[in-house]
């Protein structure tokens, strides 16, 4: 009995030691964000605010850039930025728990890109009830009315613009494949709505199939391979984001097919590099660094009693073969070295 107790205590102590030993260090690589919103020198206040930045997952490149932008702005302003991200964007319950736990831990503001725009509403209402200002970024949460601002792109708008570029490059006609993300995701619904609206506007554009790749490289690649097998005449492929688009590109190249143009959304450096090399037709920048940085800025400004805008737009550049190099030089000079 004694031995068992001591052994178990030893186990727990080891675990506890491991626990406290693993500090929550996040990357603080300098973000080369161009003209990050307005603002002048640091918020002079002596208080160090705690700003919680919630991203959709902790591992994809896009969200790492968001966090880098947020952290850099946090350093500049002298506030503490804490990153909260579930392991995958499908874990909306995990994100909900994180919001709740951050409220308990006493964050001063919440900046959030929600995994599920409906499920997160109760948690955000709790935040508002606790007097914590909420900044929504990247993906709208239409049912939550009390956010202090929105930072990011209009998903419908961004998708519309880049898809129209593609259609125009094909003289307004051709067979189009939609490789969407999670069919029920709000961001997906908005982005694909743009494509279907454009297909109506350009009657000679045919949407020949619509398959889910779940914004995952492998799944998108598999889906695309199957689509290539089933359809011999494809002109354009619309993918939910750059990662999915690259999966499609790889599938097309692996199958030895030519003459198919793929577009993505997000403007990640990988997408831009592929555009530079002519493998990807277009992508559109979402401005991840700015999303992170401007969210933190807006939160801090609000806490300091300053006026903030209702909407901060980020990104917007369509990246194609001709401007890809310049884009990379400006935002991601160290990519893939």
């Amino acid at each position, binding site marked *: 009995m004694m031995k068992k107790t001591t052994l178990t205590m030893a186990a727990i102590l080891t675990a506890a030691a491991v626990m406290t030993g693993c500090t929550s260090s996040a990357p603080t690589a300098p973000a080369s964000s161009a003209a990050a919103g307005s603002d002048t020198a640091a918020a002079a206040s002596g208080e160090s605010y705690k700003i919680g930045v919630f991203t959709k997952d902790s591992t994809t*490149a896009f969200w790492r850039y968001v966090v880098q932008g947020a952290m850099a702005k946090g350093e500049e302003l002298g506030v503490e930025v804490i990153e909260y991200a579930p392991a995958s964007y499908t874990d909306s319950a995990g994100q909900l728990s994180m919001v709740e736990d951050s409220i308990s831990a006493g964050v001063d503001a919440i900046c959030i890109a929600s995994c599920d725009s409906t499920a997160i509403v109760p948690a955000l209402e709790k935040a508002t009830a606790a007097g914590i200002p909420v900044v929504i970024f990247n993906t709208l949460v239409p049912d939550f009315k009390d956010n202090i601002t929105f930072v990011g792109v209009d998903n419908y708008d961004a998708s519309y613009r880049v898809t129209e570029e593609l259609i125009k490059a094909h003289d307004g006609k051709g067979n189009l494949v939609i490789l969407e993300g999670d069919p029920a995701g709000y961001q997906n619904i908005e982005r694909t709505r743009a494509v279907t609206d454009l297909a109506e506007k350009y009657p000679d554009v045919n949407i020949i199939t619509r*398959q889910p790749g779940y914004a995952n490289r492998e799944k998108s690649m*598999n889906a695309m*391979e199957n689509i290539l097998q089933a359809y011999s005449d494809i002109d354009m492929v619309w993918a939910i984001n750059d990662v999915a688009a*690259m999966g499609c590109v790889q599938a097309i190249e692996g199958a*030895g097919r030519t003459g198919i143009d793929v577009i993505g959304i997000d403007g990640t450096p990988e997408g831009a590099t592929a555009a530079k090399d002519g493998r990807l037709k277009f992508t559109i920048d979402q401005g991840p660094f700015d999303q992170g940085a401007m969210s933190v800025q807006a939160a801090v400004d609000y806490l300091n009693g300053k006026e903030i805008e209702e909407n901060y737009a980020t990104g917007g550049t369509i990246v194609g073969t001709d401007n890809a190099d310049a884009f990379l030089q400006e935002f991601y000079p160290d990519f893939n070295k």
Partner: protein
Amino acid sequence: MKGKDFLMKYSRIVILVLIMAGVSIASPDFLKPSNLLNVARQSSMLLIMSLGMTCAMLLGRGVDMSIGATLSLTSCVAAGFLRSNDTVGSVLIGIVIALVIGMFIGLINGVLISYLHLPAILVTYGVREIIRSVAFFYMDGDIISGFHKFVMFMGSGFAFGAIPTQIIIALVLTAATAWMLKHTRMGRELYVVGANPSAAKFSGLKAEKSVILGFVLSGALAALAGIVYLGRLGAAEAEIGNQFHFQCVSAVAIGGISFAGGAGSAWGAVIGALILNILINGMNLLNISSYWQGTVNGVIIIVAVLLDYVVRK
């Protein structure tokens, strides 16, 4: 009697043939050479991973849940050595590094399972969580792309003009594994330890060594699969490979492995991987929503093991 024996021995091939016949009747496009090659190509990755899973499961200790994570970590670490402007020597070093890491993970699994008698499913799950997070920390969201043409050739190239290299690599590894399992002492010992642990002990066999070997092989094959996968995906990111463990277990179960250990073969893994992918392919050709794939998978697993059970009675 004879019919029953035939069925027992070749039940898997019978199922495979029946499924192929069924799919080709439903959709004549199935038998097109380009389609068949596509199916074989898509099965290659799963096959290589399933070979490893087979080696681990022959021991009868349980499944290896960590192979997906091993694939991810080994390919991410090796990726740095496989860039397009690296030398062939560097590529070889990268492959060796991947193998070493994979085998080391297998070693940890094997030691914990054999010497400490820990249940395989939980140990490999714990190791998986740790290795996954190591991979994620290592990459920190970055993607490495642009690999050496040799790697790309392995993963998405065509040999002799028309045959995807992946298939050849997968088949070579299968033959090698099958040979090792049947004709080398250490291979045969994997079976013995699984089939009859007490007899093994009696004849002086050190079960621990075999268990470690089984999991080391699993790790090594996952690492090799990782290299090929890099060529197939064209990019390394920490997220890849996460669904493989369940797919592999499905493939080897359909292929006829015994969960108690001691029975199963490399060629069984081939059949299992093929059946799974043919069904998916069939559903795609027939335009059946991909949502149904899981149900079909599940049903075929039950049918396959049920068949075994009924035939054995």
